[in-house]
């Protein structure tokens, strides 16, 4: 099993008052509680952010030191809950500051790139600089990302597919050649930067419940990473993935199954619950990824899918509800291990992303949580995974 460490890298210097209140300088469309996309960046202090970046990077180093196999990075825009405005930048930093861990990009927001060949170049550079440690995840990117980057949401899926095809070709087919597609037009594709891993870095696809995205991943045999989905949804996703895999001609296994879970561990249950509340404030109830029309703008997916998604987000947001459903795993190491065992037994993933630190949790507490995970959680989870035969693609490849 490959276990990665994840944090959204929140801009935790933001005060709750600034986040919730209305302000005289607000965008005319902003309502109280809108904390992404149009929430003014005058609340962003680069001095505080510089300190936070240094702390997050130190946390990544520690994650490697205590035994995590990967560091998961991502990208969001106009978002206080995530300071990673460019995934390839943070991936480059992780490549330079670590020696062993996989750099797990979940993922590169393909449709937001107007020139995917540049992405092919940047990821190839990261793969070489990290000595072949890149996992190049790809995503459609959420609705707010389309608005923040002014990318037409009605063509999001078309751009995702075409950018994917262009990216794979740029990685694998020697140039120069020309690309004239529907959304991308490149006179000459001939990047003098190609990946170290052959034929190309592993591609993973994270997602929630989008049927088309799950089918896409399965058709390409790309591992699909469920982003903190419920047990019921996760099982449904694997059912669909396995079915499409069989139709495509391969048998899916744990190596194709990833799961990201909020996992908040502390010496005492009380402290873990306090940290969990903080975690949720920033990444759940607080950010909530914005209003429905930003989460999934018109055209981003079908009317039915979008209206269903908005209802689901609202229903799943409370801390108590999430702990009960297991989408937040909270407690002492023993409690957390027991809950993770339940996830592993029930859904059989070979790829696990643990998300312990978020919200305004201070640096020392974050480091403590990482240390505690390394000492008291990871060895047991690895043992359970071994016992259940949950192997990742790298273990299988090395026999």
């Amino acid at each position: 099993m490959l276990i990665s460490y994840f944090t959204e890298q929140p801009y935790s210097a933001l005060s709750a008052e600034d986040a919730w209140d209305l302000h005289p300088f607000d965008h005319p469309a902003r309502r109280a509680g809108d904390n992404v996309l149009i929430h003014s960046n005058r609340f962003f202090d680069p001095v505080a952010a510089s300190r936070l970046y240094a702390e997050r990077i130190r946390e990544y180093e520690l994650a490697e030191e205590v035994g995590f196999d990967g560091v998961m990075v991502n990208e969001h825009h106009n978002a206080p809950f995530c300071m990673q405005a460019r995934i390839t930048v943070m991936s480059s930093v992780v490549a330079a500051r670590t020696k062993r861990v996989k750099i797990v990009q979940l993922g590169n927001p393909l449709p937001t790139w107007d020139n995917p060949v540049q992405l092919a170049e940047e990821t190839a550079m990261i793969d070489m600089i990290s000595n072949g440690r890149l996992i190049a995840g790809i995503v459609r990117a959420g609705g707010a990302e389309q608005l923040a980057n002014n990318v037409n949401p009605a063509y999001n899926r078309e751009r995702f597919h075409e950018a994917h095809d262009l990216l794979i070709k740029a990685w694998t087919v020697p140039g120069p050649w020309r690309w004239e597609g529907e959304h991308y037009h490149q006179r000459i594709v001939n990047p003098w930067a190609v990946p170290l891993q052959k034929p190309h870095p592993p591609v993973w696809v994270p997602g929630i419940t989008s049927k088309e995205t799950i089918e896409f991943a399965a058709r390409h045999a790309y591992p699909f990473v469920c982003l903190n989905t419920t047990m019921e949804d996760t099982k449904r996703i694997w059912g669909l993935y396995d079915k499409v895999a069989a139709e495509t001609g391969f048998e899916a296994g744990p190596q194709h199954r990833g799961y990201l879970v909020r996992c908040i561990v502390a010496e005492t249950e009380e402290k873990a619950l306090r940290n969990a509340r903080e975690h949720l404030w920033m990444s759940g109830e607080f950010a909530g990824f914005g209003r429905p029309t930003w989460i999934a703008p018109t055209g981003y997916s079908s009317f039915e899918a979008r209206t269903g998604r908005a209802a689901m987000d609202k229903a799943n947001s409370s801390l108590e509800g999430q702990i009960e459903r297991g989408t937040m795993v909270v407690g002492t190491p023993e409690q957390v291990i027991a809950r993770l065992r339940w996830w592993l037994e029930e859904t059989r993933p070979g790829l696990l992303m643990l998300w312990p630190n978020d919200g305004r949790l201070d640096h020392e507490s974050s480091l403590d949580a990482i240390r505690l995970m390394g000492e008291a959680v990871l060895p047991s989870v690895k043992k359970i995974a071994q016992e259940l035969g949950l192997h990742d693609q790298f273990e299988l490849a090395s026999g």
Partner: protein
Amino acid sequence: MHSFRQAIAGTEIDVLSDGDGPRLTILHRDTGRAGWTPLHARLAKRFHVVAPSLPGYDSSGRPDWLRNVTGLAALIGMLDDTLGGESGAWLGLGFGGWAAAELAAHSPSRVAKLILHSPMGIKPPEGEIFDQFLIEAEDYVRLGFSSQEAYDRQRAEEGEGRSARLDRNREMTTRIAWKPAMFDLALPHLLRGVSIPSLTVWSSADAIVPRSCAEIYRDALGGHYTEIPGGHMAEYEAPDALAALVEEFLGC
């Protein structure tokens, strides 16, 4: 009132028409054509009113290949050809005003007279065309009304199916007018070469299209300009005032 569908370049276009007299084609806003509005009803007393649902809007087919308003206007021009007779007058409302102006710029022979109400399609030198994509579709409709009462009445009259219809219409607007947002940089330049009698009308409480857009149209077309009270949705809030201006301008 007659209702029919006409295939144009592989796309089925849904058309309502009524009345006798000179032809007047009305192009709806980006929220679509909810039905036969009070404005249509009054104008149909003096004109042969033709009111298509633009391609991709309401129950008209969606040409997936269409990427801009120029192409949309071309399809509407082709629809006009199928109706026969001489070129008629066009009344474009908001987004429909943009489409009518594109038609006038690219096929001036199809447009005898042009009336634009709070037209989009030009980058305003002052203010902004409100970015509908930042708010819910229903909230955008509400913004088009200056009167809560008028909004409530229109919403109640439409009834079921409204959310899906608004969503479909917004998706088509997204497909063809996302960037630049609701304007065409070439249009004001092209309009300077158009010599069609024109009237531009702006609603003084319009929260969606700023006055400066209408003023640029007036200047580019060298036509008449006037203002009426109410919000963007003049066909519901000020149908008589707008109809009276149309009738006067068209000499009826």
